[in-house]
């Protein structure tokens, strides 16, 4: 295979530093205009840099060409199906980009006096109110910068809540199916993880949960749960789980990565959760940007509210005939404090609020309904034919917005690992599903189509999986050596960890 190279494969990757040539430049800076003094009279010589950093020297047309060409070496959501499980790769409306770029948003300084930033604070307050209604919890902080940051916030809130009651608890329970960020956040917040097993329906194993609670009396600070969980199924025992945790004195944390399954249908607050993080870059359409930015606001119950990060956006009733006003409240004596600078990722708030306005309560409800419909349809399509045989569903029941297949029979019968299937999908023009997660499922393949894909796309994906399995019956090597058509072929990832080269060497 691959006797000839594609033009993109033939093009040798060259960094912008390697394209640099002394004397070239793009920027024209304004003149100083002021009387200039020798630099060393303004700043002592020993604090000055002997040589400027070796940034590339390159003219504007070549900068543009360099990055445009690089962009073509990326696959993106606007070009094709991206069913990456747990990532909610839904369409990114361009209206949201337009409103975020309005100077009143984009050029607003974060330290602007609240009385001259009323529109921004009102927008934040409206977003808080919307998320509060969607999550079924009365209070919201927009400050956390991402889901993992929301988790850290939630665990620090839990710590503060217990400390306020004179307790120091050390354990945090999390199912073995949980996102990797959950245990990592637990450690950062100074707690210890206690794993809880999964039952045959894909939910929390109740006996194990009871056992873990009994083994750690008065020491369980929190249970972190995703519902629907990472297997894409709703845990029917959630009310009982919540009762058990609350009875044991712990808080219940909801990883909102999968909120796109339940918007307008069921609310974490009503399920008994105390703290929820919401990934605005998942359910609320903030573009992922190739790995950020996002935002991870948290919604909390009344008992957690006093500890929320500061400052908090508040609405104050007007007086003397003035309307209500919005302010930043720093006077929060029990607050865990700041989690970051200023007020949070406001640009993300603008996009997500525009999305909420565009869809409305009815549209959000329909979005979740269609996400669940699409997932179940694709699951049904993949239960047919070769896929049904080689890639069985891990937990055979209706799913919510995503589902998990196991490539175990495929590996056993065809010698094809899940990774091989994923790489071959690249040649068919698809981004593969999430692979090897959750860890509980052997050769896992986690598929989340989202609501913004049409039936034709789902059919084409199912057909591609079928075609790959069919060709593998004849020649498994085809998939094992895939991909062939991408800008580069399989890369040596081990080397990048053993002998890391993490920057361009210059000169």
């Amino acid at each position, binding site marked *: 295979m691959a006797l000839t190279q594609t033009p993109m494969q033939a093009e040798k990757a060259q960094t912008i530093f390697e394209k640099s040539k002394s004397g070239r430049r793009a920027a024209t800076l304004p003149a100083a205009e002021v009387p200039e003094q020798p630099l060393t009279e303004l700043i002592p010589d020993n604090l000055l840099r002997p040589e400027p950093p070796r940034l590339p020297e390159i003219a504007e047309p070549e900068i543009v060409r360099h990055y445009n060409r690089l962009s073509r070496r990326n696959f993106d959501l606007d070009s094709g199906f991206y069913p990456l499980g747990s990532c909610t790769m839904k369409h*990114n409306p361009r209206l949201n980009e337009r409103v975020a770029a309005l100077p009143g948003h984009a050029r607003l300084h974060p330290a602007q*006096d609240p009385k001259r930033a009323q529109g921004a604070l009102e927008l934040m307050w409206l977003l808080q109110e919307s998320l509060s209604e*969607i999550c079924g919890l009365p209070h919201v902080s927009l400050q956390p*910068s991402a889901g993992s940051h929301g988790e850290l916030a939630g665990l620090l809130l839990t710590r503060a809540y217990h400390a306020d009651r004179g307790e120091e608890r050390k354990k945090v329970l999390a199912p073995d199916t949980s996102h990797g960020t959950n245990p*990592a956040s637990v450690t950062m917040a100074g707690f210890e993880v206690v794993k809880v097993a999964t039952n045959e329906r894909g939910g929390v194993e109740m006996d194990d949960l009871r056992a873990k609670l009994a083994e750690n009396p008065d020491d369980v600070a929190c249970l972190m749960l995703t519902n629907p969980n990472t297997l894409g199924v709703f845990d029917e025992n959630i009310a009982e789980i919540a009762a058990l945790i609350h009875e044991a004195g712990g808080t219940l944390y909801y990883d909102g990565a999968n909120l796109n399954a339940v918007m307008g249908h069921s609310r974490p607050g009503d399920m008994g959760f105390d703290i929820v993080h919401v990934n605005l870059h998942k359910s609320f359409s903030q573009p992922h*940007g190739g790995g950020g930015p996002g935002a991870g606001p948290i919604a909390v119950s009344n008992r957690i509210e006093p500890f929320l990060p500061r400052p908090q956006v508040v609405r104050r009733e007007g007086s003397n005939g003035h309307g209500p006003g919005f302010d930043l409240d720093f006077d929060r004596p029990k607050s865990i404090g700041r989690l970051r600078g200023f007020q949070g990722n406001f640009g993300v708030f603008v996009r997500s609020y525009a999305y909420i306005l565009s869809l409305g309560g009815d549209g959000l409800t329909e979005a979740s309904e269609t996400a669940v419909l699409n997932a179940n349809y694709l699951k049904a399509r993949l239960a047919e034919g070769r896929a049904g045989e080689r890639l069985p569903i891990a937990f055979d029941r209706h799913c919510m917005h995503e589902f998990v297949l196991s490539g175990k029979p495929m590996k056993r019968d065809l010698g094809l690992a899940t990774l091989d299937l994923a790489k071959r999908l690249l040649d068919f023009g698809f981004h593969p599903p999430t692979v090897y997660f959750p860890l509980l499922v052997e050769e896992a393949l986690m598929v989340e189509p989202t609501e913004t894909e049409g*039936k034709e796309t789902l059919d084409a994906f199912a057909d591609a999986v079928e075609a790959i399995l069919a060709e593998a019956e004849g020649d498994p090597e085809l998939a094992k050596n895939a991909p062939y058509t991408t800008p580069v072929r399989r890369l040596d*990832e081990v080397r990048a960890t053993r002998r890391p080269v*993490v920057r361009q060497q210059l000169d």
Partner: protein
Amino acid sequence: MTRYTSATPDDRREMLDAIGVSSTTELFEQIPEPLRLGRPLALPDGMGEAEVYERLAGLAARNADAEEQVCFVGAGMYDHYVPAIVDAITSRSEFLTPYTPYQPEISQGGLQVMFEFQTAMSELTGLPVSSAGLYEGPSALASAGYLAMGATKRKRFVVSRGVHPHSRETLATYSVGYGAEVVEVGLEGGLTDAAALAAAVDGETAAVFLQSPNFLGAVEDVEALGAAAKEHGALLIVACDPMTLGILKSPGECGADIAVGEGQPLGNRLDFGGPSFGFFCATEEQIRRMPGRIAGETEDVDGRRGFVLALQTREQHIRREKATNNICTAQALNALGAMIHLAWLGREGFRELGELLVQRTAYARQRLGAVDGVTLLHEAPVAREFALRLDAPVGKVLDRVAERGIAAGYPLGREYPEFEDGLLVAITERRTKAQIDELAEALGAAIAAEGGAFLSDSESKAPLAGGAA
């Protein structure tokens, strides 16, 4: 059907048939009945695109942004000119809409950008290793504390009061989780009190945190201050303003183990505080403890040069509770903006810009310092920001100056009660001599109007030493 979904009633019927259910309601039956919402969300119905635009434009119009108000506010985020090519390239779908590059064969563009960005930040900070980007500045500093604790097995942080208050507060928030103690060292003449710092650092100290230029704008002698950290085996963590690194000695050259900071000045708009990115650079020794994504160079099976996420064995999706950090966001799009801005400025332009800031800042400091009722808060060397003391209530002066279309600066009182009369003024290449002159005049007029009333003003807090009494 919303405008972002495609399933027609016929599609739905066919799909439900294939699933083998009669309606989507059946699919939701796995949610126990009492937990189903059973009512519409109490949110307005969806709106058309034009209506949403008008609604948000209406909100935006109620903010005084840097387009309508001349912005001398800094405090970590600055009104720099972002070149047009940044918008053009970062708005390309191929950069805007992918996820984290988990499939490197189809993510070479994004991965190479990370590699270039790491190279640029490594050059700027003078340290060999850079992460691909963290959330933003203050939390990057807190993550450096977490690294230092792991590296030294110690739990005490010594932090200069010149470090950004948001960073200090974030470090304190995180430290409660880590179980670390935070000790602050005060300022003397605008600079970290060297004797107090040396006295505070001991064999239990995990890290010493400095910032240069510090929050009051003063350029610190990091090398000299850092000696205390070296002596006791603590890590030296330096927060810096990337825009000053064309002229100021880099953290690496000053002996820092880690350099962190807020990346907004590079290619990112103000956005009322985010999204931007945090940078995190370190010595080789720390590479396996670094937080966040790192891109690395490698080869494909045919020997082509390529890029992948390197050292993933540090990360949460592999290591779970043993990960070096929980962060998985690289702020990749924001880091791309920074890389383009840096390439646009180039080696010479970046240095020239740094020098331009120093020259205009020196002028502004001299000009504003000469205004009646204004004194310099400190006389230490500055690069692009400086602190003043006003002989009138700062809030009221700011309101008066705002009426003339100028945001004069950042009031220091909330975070530095000892400088309740303090104002921090920031300069970018967008702030012209004419604007500086206008600020001087507006500040003088405002202080004159407020000054006499200072001590008798019932709304002002306790009288200040050196006030109008």
